[in-house]
């Protein structure tokens, strides 16, 4: 595609600037004259019982705020498409705060659009903002591995076969941390437990996820969780094979009410409304935001009917420890599943340790490989 000296987008941008100049003195939003437009971009459908639904629930909370207009676009690929989406939200809808929510949007797409729109704030989920990147870009994420650790505790109590299963999309650090946390949580109950992992290779592949879940059930796993964009297929298939399930991203209890133990959920509503409030008040959001259970970034689904009293007690006790802060799920003595030492006795990685965001191993007891 070639751009003439006066492209359509350039022209619109220019005319928008002229129109915008008329309202220049009106910089704050709190005076109620012009509402703040907030844009959300999702990589999949926003009602997928998963990652995108979790963000869309946050967006719905923002929509209910005074003086805010929300624009949303779903099924936007992690390609040049997302740049077009963001630019159209900026140029046509006059969005001043954007939430491009998928991991792959960050580099190069957000980093390319941000410098061209210095008066727009970009808040990206899961990215790793570092010094030197545009100052109008921020990244935020939650320590959801802790949620998988708590999932693991209920799984450890529920399993009869001492084998639990994990359907994973891709071996990236966040997924590996979830797998490791799930097993380590279960091993708090019984150190004999192993976790079988199957990678599907993509974030959303319904048939392959169903096949992976069946393969786990065939291999004798009787508690299954996952890290894919839409856990619906995994939950339904696993429950159909008479396995217990632990949820991820959002609450999937309605899909398998009897078999659902608990789930690690995002809790974006509180985070998004507070970020939007900061902008409404004329403040600046920090460029790098992380938080866990205690900060309200993540929450656990209500415990299901199959959770025993012993399980409930250990779940609550561990949750209280995590809420107190500085909890380390990955702690020594610990080896990976090829025999390398990850942490010596007494060593540990607390939930906010930045080293966890570059994890490249599966711990001892996980059956699977990262490549």
């Amino acid at each position, binding site marked *: 595609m070639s751009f003439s000296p006066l492209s359509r987008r350039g022209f619109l941008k220019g005319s928008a600037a002229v129109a915008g100049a008329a309202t220049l003195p009106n910089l704050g939003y709190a005076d109620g004259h012009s509402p703040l437009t907030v844009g959300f971009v999702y990589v999949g459908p926003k009602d997928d019982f998963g990652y995108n639904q979790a963000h869309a629930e946050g967006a719905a909370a923002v929509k209910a705020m005074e003086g805010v207009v929300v624009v949303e676009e779903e099924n936007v690929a992690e390609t040049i498409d997302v740049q077009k989406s963001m630019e159209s939200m900026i140029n046509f809808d006059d969005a001043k705060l954007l939430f491009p929510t998928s991991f792959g949007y960050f580099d190069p797409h957000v980093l390319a659009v941000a410098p061209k729109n210095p008066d727009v704030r970009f808040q990206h989920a899961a990215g790793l903002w570092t010094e030197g990147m545009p100052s109008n870009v921020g990244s935020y994420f939650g320590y959801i591995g802790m949620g998988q650790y708590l999932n693991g505790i209920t799984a450890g109590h529920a399993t009869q076969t001492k084998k639990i299963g994990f359907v994973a999309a891709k071996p990236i650090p966040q997924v590996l941390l979830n797998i490791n946390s799930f097993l380590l949580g279960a091993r708090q109950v019984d150190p004999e437990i192993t976790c079988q992992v199957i990678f599907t290779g993509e974030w959303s592949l319904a048939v392959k996820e169903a096949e992976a879940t069946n393969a786990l059930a065939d*291999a004798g796993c009787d508690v299954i969780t996952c890290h894919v964009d839409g856990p619906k297929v995994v939950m339904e298939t696993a429950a159909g094979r008479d396995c217990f399930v632990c949820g991820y991203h959002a609450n999937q209890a309605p899909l398998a009410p009897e078999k659902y133990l608990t789930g690690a959920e995002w809790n974006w509503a509180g985070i998004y409304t507070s970020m939007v409030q900061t902008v409404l008040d004329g403040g600046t959001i920090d460029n790098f935001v992380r938080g866990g259970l205690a900060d309200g970034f993540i929450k656990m689904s209500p415990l299901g009917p199959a959770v025993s009293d012993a399980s409930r007690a250990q779940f609550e006790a561990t949750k209280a420890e995590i809420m107190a802060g500085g909890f380390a799920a990955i702690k020594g003595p610990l080896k990976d599943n090829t025999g390398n030492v990850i942490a010596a006795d007494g060593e540990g990685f607390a939930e906010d340790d930045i080293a966890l965001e570059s994890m490249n191993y599966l711990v001892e007891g996980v059956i699977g490989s990262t490549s």
Partner: protein
Amino acid sequence: MDTDLGYWIIPLAIIGGAIRVSTPFLFVSLGEALTERSGRINLGLEGTLVFGAMSGYAVAYLTGSPWLGVLAAALCGALFGLVHGVICSLPRVNDIAIGIAMMILGMGLAFYFGKPFVQPVAPDLPAISFGWWSDIPQVRAALEVNVLFLIGAGLAVLLWWMLRATRVGLTLRVVGDSTDAARAMGLRPALIRTCATAVGGAFAGVGGAYLSLYYPGSWNEGISSGQGLMAVALVIFARWNPLACFGAALLFGGAGALGPVLQSVGVSEGYYLFFAAPYVLTLGVLIATSSPKRAMTGAPGELSITK
């Protein structure tokens, strides 16, 4: 649940996978074989499959009956086929280009109308347990056979017999092999091809309904990972023979189960390669059966790719 089958799990999973995953391949490829035997290619079946999945799920949810869902999917599929067939009957229209347009249209319409049906849970199609003789849960699970799979298998035999031994089959083959000969016989090629495309579309719609109503059994925008397109390739692989389509669909279904099951028995290195197994297999078979000396056997003469 606590039965450890060791490596026996691999053949079991391949059989189970073949039964579970093959049905959409089977229906789409049977439909496409029928269409191509009449001398047209309908590349739009991927869109028909996705629309069938959506309409089947929606109707099953609204009426509470999965069979009405299958019927609706078949009707929608027939409609898509009819549109393709009618447009292609106009002079100087390329069936491949129309097929691609229909594919994108079908997916777009399915996503548009399917939005309210992503969340609700529709009733599933019933399955028949052929594993009652075994105490092993894995065997029982693998031998849960859906009724649509059996219907598909029956249809494959029926179509094979129809093409070989009946007047309808002969008519279809004449139209597919030579428009001039068909005209000389007093047949109306455009009409016959349009009918064949509509029936083919109905088959593809049913294939889609299997995806959303049985396995994996829910409707969302990522329900099909290209099964419709692969099934079109599968027809060439099966040399336009319905019985071979059945075999090829089983093969693709079974090969698709290989990646996950190998990881489950501990062969975890290089799973991306195992996921590519069905495609490597296709390449291998096509190369092995190709010949520089003669044209593809079984290819209808009027097909635009073989002309």
